[in-house]
């Protein structure tokens, strides 16, 4: 019997997509979408890019209020799920109207991530950049000329640094790893962005850990100080797995799911940033932080619920990061230990035991799209085919 009540915990892009796709697949049961933040579900990627420059919050809204009425999706903003009662198939909520329970036939965990708090003294002096409210505070802080320190040289920290520099601020980025975006891109691509940011006048402190933040700046582990009027903490995220942990679901760096995106409880699925799933190419368990994974996961789960069955998850991962005029696009996913080959300027192929794993490009949509197709199931994922496709 197909479930008649679906509850989605988390109203980010993935959680909302699950609701949209359930209706698109003809699911006619009850859908409840629960979000911890106020307001309508919104896009996060622009918070570190266009929103900081333009400040148009309404442009971030993913669907208008009328969507929830016309598609009969019950949306509960400003509401937290306190507990999953798997025996009773209920979630316990705390929000408008106080503590209450809500029954489910299928539960979708789309709880996302939260910002990592590394062991640095005085982090209460630092800004965060995760929510619309965070981005609004940052926009205000950027209104006057400032000296800014950014802790973390990943996508978010660097996207923010590029915007702040463009606005004329003095920007310093502190990264504990010896290179930028070390978890996400090849060393060659790290070097490309290192050179670009330096050319914009961003100061980079690589291989230096922040050990303390105060009202006047950041203390580094080599005894140096970075003077700053304000500090942004952008040191990565960790998955929100507390609900799953407490409910006894299997979690290892995220809620563990199978190729059908089912958790260790067949009545519970997980998607997006909070889910650890088998990479279709390598079989290794991975957790991706991307719009692509969140929405592709959501579509599979919705189809499975609505139709009773669906093929295993097989989507090719893709990522992007806009840093100033540099548009980084990544097709595929390369784990730690991947080797690299610089194919052309701003075009790096990465390999693992299974062959071509990922292709990184800068301002090269053509190569990116070719790579996505080569990496898709049935594609000829090798370097010769990539070169043929790109230089044809």
């Amino acid at each position, binding site marked *: 019997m197909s479930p008649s009540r679906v509850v989605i915990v988390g109203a980010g892009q993935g959680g909302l997509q699950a609701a949209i796709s359930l209706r698109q697949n003809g699911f006619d049961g009850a859908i409840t979408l629960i979000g911890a933040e106020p307001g309508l579900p919104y*896009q996060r*990627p*622009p918070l570190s890019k266009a929103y900081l420059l333009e400040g148009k919050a*309404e*442009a*971030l*809204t*993913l*669907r*208008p209020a*009328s*969507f929830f009425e*016309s598609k009969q999706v019950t949306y509960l903003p400003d509401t937290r799920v306190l507990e999953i009662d798997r025996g009773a198939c209920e979630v316990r909520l705390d929000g408008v109207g106080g503590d209450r329970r809500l029954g489910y036939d299928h539960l979708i965990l789309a709880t996302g991530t939260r910002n990592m708090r590394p062991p640095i003294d005085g982090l209460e002096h630092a800004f965060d950049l995760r929510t619309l409210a965070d981005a609004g505070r940052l926009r205000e802080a950027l209104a006057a000329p400032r000296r800014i320190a950014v802790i973390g040289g990943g996508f978010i920290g660097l996207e923010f640094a590029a915007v702040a520099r463009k606005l004329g601020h003095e920007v310093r980025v502190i990264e504990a790893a010896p290179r930028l975006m070390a978890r996400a891109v090849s060393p060659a691509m790290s070097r490309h962005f290192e050179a670009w940011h330096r050319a914009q006048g961003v100061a980079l402190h690589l291989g230096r850990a922040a050990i303390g933040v105060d009202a006047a700046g950041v203390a580094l582990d080599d005894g140096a100080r970075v003077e700053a009027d304000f500090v942004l903490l952008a040191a990565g995220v960790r998955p929100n797995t507390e609900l799953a942990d407490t409910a006894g679901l299997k979690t290892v760096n995220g809620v563990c799911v199978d190729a059908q995106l089912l958790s260790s409880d067949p009545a519970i699925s997980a998607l997006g940033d909070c889910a650890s799933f088998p990479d279709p190419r390598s079989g290794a368990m991975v957790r991706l932080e991307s*719009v*692509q994974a969140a*929405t592709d996961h959501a*579509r599979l789960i919705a189809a499975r619920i609505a139709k009773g069955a669906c093929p295993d998850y097989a989507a090719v991962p*893709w990522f*992007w990061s*806009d840093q100033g005029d540099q548009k980084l*696009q990544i097709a595929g996913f390369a784990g730690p230990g991947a080797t690299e080959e610089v194919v052309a300027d701003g075009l790096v192929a990465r390999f693992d035991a299974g062959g071509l794993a990922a292709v990184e490009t800068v301002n090269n*949509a*053509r190569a*990116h*799209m070719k790579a*996505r*197709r080569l990496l898709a199931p049935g594609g000829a994922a090798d370097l010769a085919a990539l070169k043929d496709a790109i230089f044809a």
Partner: protein
Amino acid sequence: MIKVTYVAHDGTETVIEAEEGTSVMQAAVSNDVDGIVGECGGSMMCATCHCYVDEAWEARTGQRSDDEDEMLEGAASEVTERSRLSCQIKLDPSLDGLVVHLPEEQL
């Protein structure tokens, strides 16, 4: 306000009004027009806001860029000479009354 008509694959027309400066994709999404997905939010990272500009408007919407052309290669439905990524068409007064046709599929 600028008027835009979206013609769905089955012929259903939806007429909306949007502010100047809004993209054709954003206008569709914020008015809950089915048939435009706009997954990447207008960053030209996906091809899920594909539309066909009506013949009568082709000259005024301009040409698609090279990058747009490349991303359209990933579109789910047939790409024709009138195909555009609707996130790349910004509404201005010269486009008041614009008509775009939507493909059968975006994914």
